[in-house]
Each structure stands twice: as structure tokens, then as C-alpha cells.
């Protein structure tokens, strides 16, 4: 099976892992608990090239039609 790089697809926004420090800042800024973040499944195909585990937070840079670029966060869940 040939490997396809799906991160290049137009529908797939950029995913990146958020460091522990940034994660803390993020949760504090919006006064959230980790559980309140939207989920992304750990077997999601867009996460394949990222080394993430359950409980990590993923930063997603969407190309929004209204705001140009918008940043979204999801927590990795099983």
C-alpha cells in the first residue's frame, strides 16, 4: 500500500501538538478543565504523523471563511 500524505489535502487543516506549558496557559485563559474541550479521537488519520497520547491537546489552524484563519483546540481522547 502506498502511503499518501493526507496532511496536504485541501480539507485538512494544520494540526500540531500543544506543549504542556501552553496547555496550562490555554486552560487558564479560557478557565476550562481539560474535559470541556472538544475531542479528537487518538486514531484520527490527521494525527498519524504527530506523536500524541490521550490527554494531549492538539492545536488546529483552520482556514475559516469568515475570519481568514482561526485557531481551534481539541483534546486527544480514546
Amino acid at each position, binding site marked *: *500500500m*502506498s502511503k*499518501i*500524505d*493526507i496532511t*496536504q*489535502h*485541501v*480539507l*485538512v*487543516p494544520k*494540526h500540531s501538538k500543544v506543549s504542556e506549558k501552553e496547555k496550562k496557559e490555554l486552560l487558564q485563559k479560557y478557565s476550562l478543565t481539560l474535559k470541556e474541550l*472538544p*475531542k*479528537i*479521537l487518538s486514531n*484520527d*488519520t*490527521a*494525527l498519524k504523523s504527530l506523536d500524541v497520547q490521550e490527554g494531549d491537546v492538539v492545536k*488546529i489552524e*483552520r482556514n*475559516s*471563511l*469568515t*475570519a*481568514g*484563519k*482561526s485557531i*481551534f483546540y*481539541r483534546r486527544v*481522547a480514546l
Partner: protein
Amino acid sequence: MVHEQLKQYVEKIPNKLLEELEAHCPASKLKKAAEKLCEEYLNANIAPGEAVGLISAESIGEPGTQMTLNTFHFAGVAEMNVTMGLPRMVEILDARKSISTPTMEIFLKSPYNKGKDIRDVALQIKETSTSYFVKEFTINVTNLSIELNLDQEKIREVHTSVKTLAKALEKALVKEASIKLVEGDNIELKLKGKDEKSLNVLYKLKEKLKDIYVTGIKGIKQVLPVKRKDEFIIITAGSNLKKVLELEFVDTTRTVTNDIHEINSTLGIEAARQAIIDELLKVIEAQGLNVDLRHIMLVADTMCMGGSIKGITRYGVVSEKASVLARASFETPLRHLTNAALVGEIDYLDSVVENVMLNQPVPIGTGLPRVIAKK
């Protein structure tokens, strides 16, 4: 790059607005303009506690009443149907697993996108079964065998050989028949085992033969090369994104399908969210209606919150609600109430519907803030 004087607004104002401001505003007035822009932007923001979901539901539902109920819409020249209008919208919002007309738009790499071998490429993608290659089936009653008279031209057309065809047949019919190549590149099938019913079995075998998959991509039932702007793309009936993306002549960055679950499994949840938005917009625009993008984005976000796609149905988003009463008020109330009673669920009355039921102020708008006493 953002101007020095705009740095303080980067966090407060969306990028797109800042870029626009920078492009149109002379540098001397930038600071003042930015201040005003920030003020205007904050005013335009929706107020905390506003019932955005309700507004979205109305904004999408009202144009929905004006949509055509026609299921079919002709896309292009060939007899290809695509579900549009209200049925398609319901399909997307319910997140149906199997949609009524799956289609793909396959973009090709250069030089194929300029029309090189376009017919050839299209035929390679299409799922082909035995019957496509066979000119004639000859049944030999005494030998209990079937001879397939093959059309060599068609075999060459889709880049296969008689051998691969024979292999495919062998694989599919291991138990029933033995396969032999005979003169003139034809295939002979001989029935295994003999008894009185053999003749019947033979006829059944012939029918079965016709639908045996040989080459192409499973699920792609029709292909249609079309020219869009200045490149050729292939539109298909039937969808199989994963397999199509593996083909070498396919542009893997732009090829899409209208099956949202397929996008979720091959490209991930974020791609699926974007696909929901795109598909809904396509439906709304095709009807000449106009719904603000933000409502659609809210729906798509809600559907993709939990990491997988959930439809706006009693099995999807609604089943996720924390409140028993809210779930019961949507559909199948008795079942929700009895199940909740069985396990002793607690309703914290944090949301709207349950409070309406109990004749209490709802926690939206001015009902949201609470009074806190100073100690």
C-alpha cells in the same frame, strides 16, 4: 506581516480584518482606524448568553421550507443524478451512513489534467466486472462447461490481461469451477463435481459470472470526465476515497467525495467538519438561498464535537445531552424517562428545555447571570 502599530490588536481582531485594514488604510491613520475597528468588532460580537443555537435553527429551517422537494438534479450532460435540495440537506444533518447518491470529484495530476488519455484513466478507475469483457457466453451442456468469448479490445482498454481476468474468476469460484485458458485467448469454465442438478447449477453459475469483480476501484459505478475551468476532472457515481487516493495519477490534495463519513475515516474529523460546511453551502447555494455561514459552522462544529460525526437525531447529538428532561422532550419521551428512572439519573436543570418544563427562568440571555453576595 502585521504592522508595528497593529501588534496589540492581533489577539483581539481576526487576521482577515487586520490585513484588510492594512491594505486600505494609510499608515498615518492606522492607529486611529485600528482603534475604531476594534470597537466596531467588539460591538458586532454576539452577546454572552445569546441563544445562538436557536437562531441557527431558525435561520437554516426557514429557507428549508422554500427548498424544492425534488430529489434529482441533472449535473452535466450524462445521465448522472445527484441528490440536491431538502433530501440532501436532511441527509447531511442526520449524518446518514449510506447516502443516496455518493459521488466523487477526482482531480488529476499533470499531464492527465490537460486531457491526456482522459478516457483511459477514467476507465481504469471504474469498477468493471466480467460481463464488460465478454462478447458471448457459450454453454456446453454435454461437457458441463461455459466458454467465455472475450473482447480483446476492451481488455486492452482497461489495461488488464486475460490472465488477470482468469485469476479473478478463479479466486471467486474456487469451489464451483475450474478455469482453463483455451485457443484464441478465451476462457473455459468447467463445473466441479457432477450430479443431476448440474445443469441448473451451470445456469446459475453463468449469472454469477457476470458480476464478478475484475479491475478498477470497488464502488465506482460510473465515470464521467468533464472539463472544469481549464482542466479535466473525473466525476464519479459511487465513492471510495481511500482507494482512489492511492492511484498514482490522482491529485491527492484536491480529490473529494460527498460522503462525509468516508472523509472522516480517511482524512480525519477536521476535514469532515469542513466537508459538512462545504456540502451544506453547496445545497443552499444551488437553491438560490442565502444563509449566513456562521449558522452552518455552528451546526458543523456541534456535529463534530465528540471526535466522530453525530447527526442531529435522537441517536446523535440529542443523546449527548446531559439533562434527562431535555432528551425526553425531543423524541421517544417514555423510553428516556423509564431508562433514567432505572439507573437513577440526576437532572441538574442546567439548560433551557428542562427549565421551561418546570416553569423556571431559563439560563440564557438575561436569565444567565446570577447574583453573588459579597462576604
